[in-house]
């Protein structure tokens, strides 16, 4: 039944019921009047004034009718609005991940059903453009790889060509550096595009996160030794997560690399791995310049590089943290970036932990 008809039907039923009540009380009053006249004559009937009679009808017939109307109306509203609530819930749950699942339709052709259909079509179109954007990035990065190979190889030959003049070799080497930067960006874009499309090869095996974190601390110490940055692993509880070991290594190294790059001379890096309820929580905190408040929410955006990076000679494409985020999300985890009151920068990764079995 269409929404309009349903409301009309409920409305009519409520009105009819009210009418029945009012009618019944009127009948009751008139019947009583008649009985009084029959029993005690006209005088007896005159004892109750018309006003009194009317009040009785209003009180006993009208009020219940109004009450019924209000209750019935409330019920009617609730029932009529329920499909709208359901649709709102479905709308609220809509995000990039479920664009391909349509909202179930009642199929009765009413206004809401049509609205659901329109909404589903919109979801479909949205899904299509997301897919197109994703595929575009994926294809673009693939298409760029072959020409990059040719350019790289040719420059390689030029840079190592022994008969060439020193200045030409120097030029070729300088171009080679740029081609390598370009290749690395293309590689990162292709990684992100595959992550977006859910194409990341995701081995689901138990990974001892504490082992990875200990290795990482050691590696970071070596990376940071040049700038005399101290690295401490203040707590490392035995914790396992389910996931892809290689991608988790990539994630950790990525965060550690940032902590070294954006640090200051003689600064410090602190890491912890602890269990919090059912989660494994890895934090990495580093000294150094922190991002201004207004830019902090944007650190996971693609190609975002704070002024810090633009002003200094720090290498990077601004895709590192986006990659970290996509790895964390592929492992059903959460990553956040904050600046502590003491000015240190902290990145916290929360991953669902496997139950302790070791």
């Amino acid at each position, binding site marked *: 039944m269409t929404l309009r008809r349903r409301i009309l039907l409920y409305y009519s039923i409520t009105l009819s019921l009210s009418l029945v009540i009012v009618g019944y009380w009127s009948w009751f009053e008139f019947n009583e009047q008649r009985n009084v006249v029959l029993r005690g004559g006209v005088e007896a009937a005159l004892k109750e004034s018309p006003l009194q009679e009317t009040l009785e009808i209003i009180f006993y017939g009208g009020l219940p009718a109004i009450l019924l109307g209000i209750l019935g109306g409330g019920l009617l509203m609730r029932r009529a609005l329920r499909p709208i609530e359901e649709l709102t819930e479905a709308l609220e749950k809509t995000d990039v991940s479920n664009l391909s699942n349509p909202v179930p339709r009642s199929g009765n052709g009413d206004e809401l059903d049509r609205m659901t259909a329109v909404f589903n079509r919109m979801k479909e179109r949205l899904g299509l453009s997301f897919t197109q954007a994703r595929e575009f990035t994926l294809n673009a990065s*693939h*298409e760029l*790889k*072959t*020409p*990059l*190979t*040719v350019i*790289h*190889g*040719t420059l*390689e*030959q030029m*840079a*190592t060509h022994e008969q060439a003049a020193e200045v030409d070799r120097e030029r070729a*080497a300088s171009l*080679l*550096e740029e*081609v*390598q930067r370009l*290749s*690395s960006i*293309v*590689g990162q874009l*292709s*990684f992100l595009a*595959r992550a977006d499309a859910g*194409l990341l*090869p995701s081995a689901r095996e138990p990974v001892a996160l504490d082992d990875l974190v200990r290795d990482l601390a050691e*590696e970071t110490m*070596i*990376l940071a*030794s*040049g700038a005399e940055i101290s690295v401490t692993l203040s707590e490392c509880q035995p914790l396992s997560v389910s996931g892809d070991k*290689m991608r988790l*290594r*990539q994630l950790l*190294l*990525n965060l*550690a*690399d940032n902590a*070294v790059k954006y640090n200051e001379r003689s600064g410090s890096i602190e890491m912890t791995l602890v269990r919090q309820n059912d989660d494994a929580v890895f934090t990495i905190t580093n000294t150094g310049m922190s991002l201004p408040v207004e830019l902090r929410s944007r650190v996971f955006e693609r190609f975002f590089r704070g002024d810090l990076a633009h002003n200094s000679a720090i290498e*990077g494409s601004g895709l*590192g943290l986006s990659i970290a985020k996509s790895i964390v999300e592929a492992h059903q985890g959460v990553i956040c970036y904050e600046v502590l009151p003491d000015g240190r920068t902290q990145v916290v990764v929360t991953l669902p932990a496997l139950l302790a079995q070791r």
Partner: protein
Amino acid sequence: MRLLIIEDDRKTAALLTSTLSTVGGVVVWAKDGERGLNEARKGGFDALICDIMLPGVDGLSLVRTLRVEGVKTPVIMLSARGEVEQRVEGLDAGADDYLPKPFASSELLARLRSLMRRNAGQAVSTLKVADLTLDVASREVRRGGRRVDLSPRENLLLECLLRAEGSVVSRRDIISAVWEYDFDPGTNLVDVYVRRLRDKIDRDFTPALIQTVRCLGYALRLP
């Protein structure tokens, strides 16, 4: 060394041809899968270098067909598609190695070298350049007769450079040989380790053997 290149992109094929001819390779070029298959069936090649995305017969089916027919020529696959999945697919199909684009010519040559070595079946017990030796089994390193203590990573790094027999080894190849990472860590990990290795094997000795080749990587050889 006779090599067959199966690659539809003319410029990539030209680059591969000129790279391979610098190491004395004689190259035959097939520009699609069908021609590649026919050439490969004729035999007489030391190795095949085959792109995965090809018009007609694609690289994976080509290798599969060859293996079914009993052609055992070693194959290196090239691909611009996803790295890890395609590596697995390529090796499953019967390829011997896989090189993701974009790659450096030195990386292709390194793979070809290790393929030839594997095929020749020669197991070396000691790797050696000048007065620097690495005993593959005991991991013992000596320079000028004196023992040098290296960490396990430094040891692997040295082995990786020694095995290249004086050729340049790219950072990506070092990363995958020493750390077994399949990703670009974006750090200067390799450079830091090379510096540490230099401190141990080159600082107190002449001549210095580890050479930095700008943009391309490192080489271990007599200057």
